[in-house]
């Protein structure tokens, strides 16, 4: 044990310090545990993109279709490109695109597609086009 002579040295460590230290320690252990657990999840699934429409509304010059894009894989998709197609009577009438910069695993993001024609008059189809690994 060091002999303490300094002006900043108190005989006993304050309680708040011990408690805060314990909280920090628990946080680190918890995070390490989580990280090691997620690293040990051996199987890696590529990004699995699920797109669902949450809202369609009329705007100035057309229609906005808001979608929720969810990644149910275990890898992050970067620069994820999406396309939305509106078809009437089996033929495509309009195709629009959107892009999401980062979509982590088990996470979702909202994206919007602008159509000029009324989506309710046809069938909407959304699909992911491609991504890059971050």
């Amino acid at each position, binding site marked *: 044990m060091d002999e303490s002579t300094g002006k900043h040295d108190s005989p006993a*460590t304050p309680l708040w310090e011990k408690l805060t*230290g314990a909280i920090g320690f628990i946080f680190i252990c918890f*995070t390490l545990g989580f990280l090691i657990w997620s690293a040990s999840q051996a199987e890696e699934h590529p990004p699995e993109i699920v797109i669902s429409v949450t809202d369609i509304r009329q705007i100035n010059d057309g229609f906005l279709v808001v979608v929720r894009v969810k990644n149910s894989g275990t890898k992050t998709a970067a620069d994820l490109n999406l396309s939305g197609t509106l078809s009437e009577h089996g033929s495509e009438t309009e195709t629009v695109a959107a892009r999401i910069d980062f979509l982590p695993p088990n996470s979702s993001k909202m994206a919007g597609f602008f159509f000029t024609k009324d989506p309710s008059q046809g069938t909407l189809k959304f699909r992911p086009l491609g991504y890059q690994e971050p």
Partner: protein
Amino acid sequence: MPEISVVESLKPGDESKREVGRAIGGAVIFGLPMMMTGEMWWLGFYIDPERLVVLILISIPVFVGISRIIGFRESRNLADNSLDVFVAYAFGFAVSGIVLLSLGVLSLDNSAGANLTSVMLQAVPASLGALLGRSEIGSGEHDRTDERNYFDEIMVMVVGALFLALNVAPTEEVVLISYQMSAWHTLSLLIFTLLVMHIFGIVGSYASGTKYEEAPVPFFSFYAYTCVAYLVALMLSLLVLWVFGRLDHSSPGQMLAVTQVLIFPAGIGAAASRLII
């Protein structure tokens, strides 16, 4: 006299309050540049969990070593210094959690794991800030330079190198700069880095009272200080670049160039930190 009575009425609890304030302040100042960098948010989403584990596990003993030198306590035993590090981590977590939440980086749309990883990644530099903030640095009472041994000098270099390396490494520009540099650019950057580091080494040696005038060999301070600081910067740059995935899928020549780009700030940080700490 009211102003005198204010000074005299400092109770023991006030010291604790002041320390909490300093820890939070240190975490914010040190961590904010990284918390406001987009690449750091995205890194939180895709960083390899193994690499973050390695970063945390290396950070703890390094922070204990830093805690030893920054003069927060007179007693330098391991238990006290370790406690300081965990206290600093608690503040680091809290500050990065609050800031990332305020900036809208954390979101319910992200998985809990992605949010936790983001906070953890930012907590590393923020904790270093909390640790430094609680020390006597800048309070005017900090004067331990005469007690420092060689290990302590190296720890001071680590602080400076980490500060600049962590700020610069996550940015796309590190890789971008290395793309536009030829081998001659890399070589000249290396020489310029060493030159600036050496100048800081000489200036710092006067500031800290270490004199190399009785040098046993010519250019002794270059070997004893600049080269050691360069080595510290090299190792930390490699660590940080690897953790952030900036060396993945690169050719050896490309790795060398990227590393040299990061050593430029990290080395100068390592060499200059003695002037501040």
